[in-house]
């Protein structure tokens, strides 16, 4: 791991551009549906296909959503702004220009506070603007699925014209070794804010939340370095890995006297590394100009004020409030934020589990499971309600701690609900006193030495006997109850 060492020598500057597909029922400039996963080219019309003569009309809901996002990110909302055309040729863009915003964005100059290792980092926001999404191109016949080497390409315009909000940070400086964690925490917090606003389903794996990460390095006291823009960063974990990978690559290059090229780089999920895309030096001149087919957007300040007052509680505030109410410590809260499980813990408590139990599951066995699988805890195939059910069964004495883990593993493996797994695997606690007494008798008979030691005052030796009973009952007995039973039989107390 050279990342930490690299950031002793270099200072990182990061920046994030996030694209959010709004969850509006219809597209940005026409009435077409926006449902994900429909048959290709079934959600299209003359407008989103850019047919000659067609004209855009702005979806008012998209403006409202973008303003609410801006307000939640503490931005100034423009009193007058325009859309602009970004001109470039690409077959998934029906008009060969994208209707976007350029020098007159809807929202500017805000910030988002994110929690990293218990301390708050303020990420400054440059702008929030609205634009339309492009279609999707599928390159067929090549080895890589990239355009290079493909024999032909198929285009699906269902996505073309879906409203997209672009959220751009200002350069984030002074994060040092926390750079990668800050990047990840920012995207996670942003996702939570957007989810709270109910403006998008923010599913990174479906592309409704997409992220580009800018990274540069400079030696202390020197001007900022040349930045690269890493595209295709499609999970929270990848955001962190992309920053780490770029830091390590750039540091190695700088150390060997090389020069960073300003370019777009592609992130590869499989290797966790980036490869060069197109160079900015040969970048297209987008020939932006104000979109003449649309009238300027001039949100009424009174309406903006109403939207601001109706904003939901920020996730960070809600978390702080709930954490306090549940009696968890700030340190616990920080650990849960870092692991990305705080909301899961809170949801588990809402489903009825005591806070401490919920915390232990999500920071313990479930965090380990997620780590082993290389996914975020939230992506595990278990719901907070299911975790709460397991906690409930343990509390009722129907499961032991060991059995509970087996039940959870069954749920994670897709075997159904906790009750399904218990039934299928036969994991219920042995409560039959007769069977248990028999097992205890058998254990005492099998290991008289241990029994003697316990009688002689060496209580710890009871462990060997408990083990035998548990083995006999295939782990379905309650170990604590077994221990009490054994000590009883031997006439010893703790």
């Amino acid at each position, binding site marked *: 791991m050279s990342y930490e060492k690299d950031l002793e020598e270099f200072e990182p500057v990061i920046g994030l551009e996030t694209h959010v597909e709004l969850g509006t029922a219809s597209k940005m400039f026409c009435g077409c549906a926006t449902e994900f996963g429909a048959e290709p080219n079934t959600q299209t019309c*003359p407008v989103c296909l850019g047919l*000659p*003569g*067609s*004209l855009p009309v702005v979806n008012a809901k998209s403006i409202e959503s973008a303003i609410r996002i801006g307000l939640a990110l503490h931005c100034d909302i423009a009193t007058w702004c325009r859309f602009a055309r970004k001109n470039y040729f690409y077959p998934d863009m029906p008009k060969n220009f994208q209707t976007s915003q350029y020098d007159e964005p809807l929202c500017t100059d805000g910030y988002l506070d994110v929690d990293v290792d218990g301390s708050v980092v303020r990420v400054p926001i440059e702008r929030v603007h609205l634009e339309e999404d492009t279609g999707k191109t599928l390159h067929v016949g090549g080895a890589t699925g990239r355009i290079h080497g493909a024999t032909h390409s198929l285009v699906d315009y269902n996505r073309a014209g879906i409203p997209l909000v672009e959220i751009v940070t200002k350069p984030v400086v002074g994060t040092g070794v926390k750079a990668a964690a800050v990047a990840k925490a920012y995207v996670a917090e942003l996702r939570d804010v957007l989810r709270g606003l109910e403006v998008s389903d923010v599913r990174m794996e479906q592309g409704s939340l997409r992220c580009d990460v800018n990274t540069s390095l400079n030696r202390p006291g020197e001007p900022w370095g040349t930045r690269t823009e890493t595209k295709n960063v499609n999970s929270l974990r990848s955001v962190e890995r992309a920053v780490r990978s770029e830091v390590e690559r750039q540091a190695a290059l700088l150390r060997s006297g090389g020069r960073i090229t300003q370019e777009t780089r592609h992130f590869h999920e499989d290797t966790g590394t980036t490869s060069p895309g197109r160079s900015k030096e040969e970048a297209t001149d987008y*020939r932006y*100009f104000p979109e003449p087919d*649309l009238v300027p957007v001039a949100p009424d300040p009174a309406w903006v004020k109403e939207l601001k007052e109706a904003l939901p509680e920020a996730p960070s505030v809600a978390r702080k409030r709930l954490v306090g109410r549940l009696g968890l410590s700030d340190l616990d809260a920080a650990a849960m934020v870092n692991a990305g499980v705080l909301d899961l813990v809170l949801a588990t408590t809402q489903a009825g589990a005591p806070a401490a139990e919920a915390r232990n599951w999500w920071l313990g066995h479930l965090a380990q499971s997620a780590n082993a699988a290389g996914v975020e805890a939230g992506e595990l195939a278990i719901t907070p309600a299911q975790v709460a059910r397991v906690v409930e069964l343990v509390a009722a004495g129907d499961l032991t701690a060991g059995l509970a883990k087996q039940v959870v593993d069954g749920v994670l493996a897709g075997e159904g609900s906790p009750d399904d797994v218990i039934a299928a695997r036969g994991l219920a606690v042995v409560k039959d006193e007769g069977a248990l007494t028999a097992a205890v008798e058998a254990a005492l008979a099998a290991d008289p030495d241990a029994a003697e030691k316990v009688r002689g005052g060496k209580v710890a030796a009871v462990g060997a006997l408990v083990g035998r009973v548990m083995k006999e009952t295939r782990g379905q007995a309650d170990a604590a109850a077994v221990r009490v039973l054994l000590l009883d039989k031997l006439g010893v107390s703790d």
Partner: protein
Amino acid sequence: MTDLTRLTAVETREAITSGQASAVEVAQAHLDRIAAVDDRVHAFLHVDADGALAQAKRVDAGEITGPLAGVPLALKDVMTMEGIPTTCGSRILEGWRPPYDATVTARLKAAGVVILGKTNMDEFAMGSSTEHSAYGPTRNPWDLDRIPGGSGGGSSAALASYQAPLAIGTDTGGSIRQPASVTGTVGVKPTYGGVSRYGLVAFSSSLDQAGPCARTVLDAALLHEVIAGHDPRDSTSIDAPVPPVVDAARLRDVTGLRIGVVKELQGDGYEAGVTARFEEAVETLRGLGATVSEVSCPHFDYALPAYYLIAPSEASSNLARFDAVRYGLRVGDDGVASLEEVMAKTRAVGFGAEVKRRIILGTYALSSGYYDAYYGQAQKVRTLITRDFQAAWSQVDVLVAPTCPTVAFPLGAKLEDPLAMYKQDICSIPANLYGGPAASFPAGLSDGLPVGLQVMAPTLREDLLYQVGGALEAALPAQAPTLSWES
């Protein structure tokens, strides 16, 4: 029986309602007329005989009524019509049949208007002679060796050769008014946003405006009323009542109206015959009770260069969609050529020289590093021209000028000299940059060729145009082409 093709729209409707002729007979008479003369005029690119007769039958069955029900019309080929070829005079759209009606088309259909077909035009409305059509030029019915104006030469020639009593044009820098001027017909460019652009294949979005063309002022007003009005599909459409254009056309009185003659739109470069007819028309209006004064609009001198930055800039973006991917022409797709190669080849073959010239001009004007000096500066000029108009409205009710500095010129005369061609629109462009309404009305002949008087009014004051046009029409001697080539 009277020749149904010689009737005005008003007379046609009267003939239908009085039972003198059926709508089908009217439609058939015009289809016959097209069959008889259009091989020489070449006003139409596509004739929709079946659709026209079917619509006429609906009118005869009483399914649609209204002042223009059963009246034939020629639709400029820049306007979409479901299932009917729309080429914009370009090879690149060859074979494309739009799956939807333009709002104008839909309103015409709903009003019972019988759409005969699609008329020829300069490719993507770029030109002043219709010689830039990829499908060959249209000829002026007054003299077949001369141009019918452009870009809407097909529509104006259809009117002047009695192939249709009504037509739709579009005007970005004069494409309704200049053809009207050189064919002795009436052409009105409404206020920008007065008529929906939905389905009008864009040349320059901030300037394009569809409008009515006819042989009489009242006919134009009736057509205006059918196509104008707010359309939620066009964001730039104005949500306001349509000005009372029909009443204004019937008024035939300009008593007390203050008319301003634009100082900058006369003098050098204007043909003597044009100037003479123009001055005579102004004197006629004075005689009818209007007051006349000269008004200076100093920034009009910069209108042409500003226009030739703004319109090509927008066009370079609007025409980017013609890329062989989704519709229209595709050239060089041999399974080996790359996407970029197919796009480039298709555009090289599909676009004519004038369109390419303007795409290059506009691409350059919008380029990084040049934007402020060209596009940005042109927008400032546009603002100054708007201020000239606003200042004028404090002195006068309407402005007048010749529509065009010349009468119809011979085919080919300006084809090799783009700048000379561009200057055809020197008088018409200011109104487009401002956005207010403007019209061309017949103002007599110069050496047997028509001259047009242009009237410009404040935004949403189309009624003033029709008031002046109606009065002038009643006061000037009737004029009609001899059509000597027919015999």
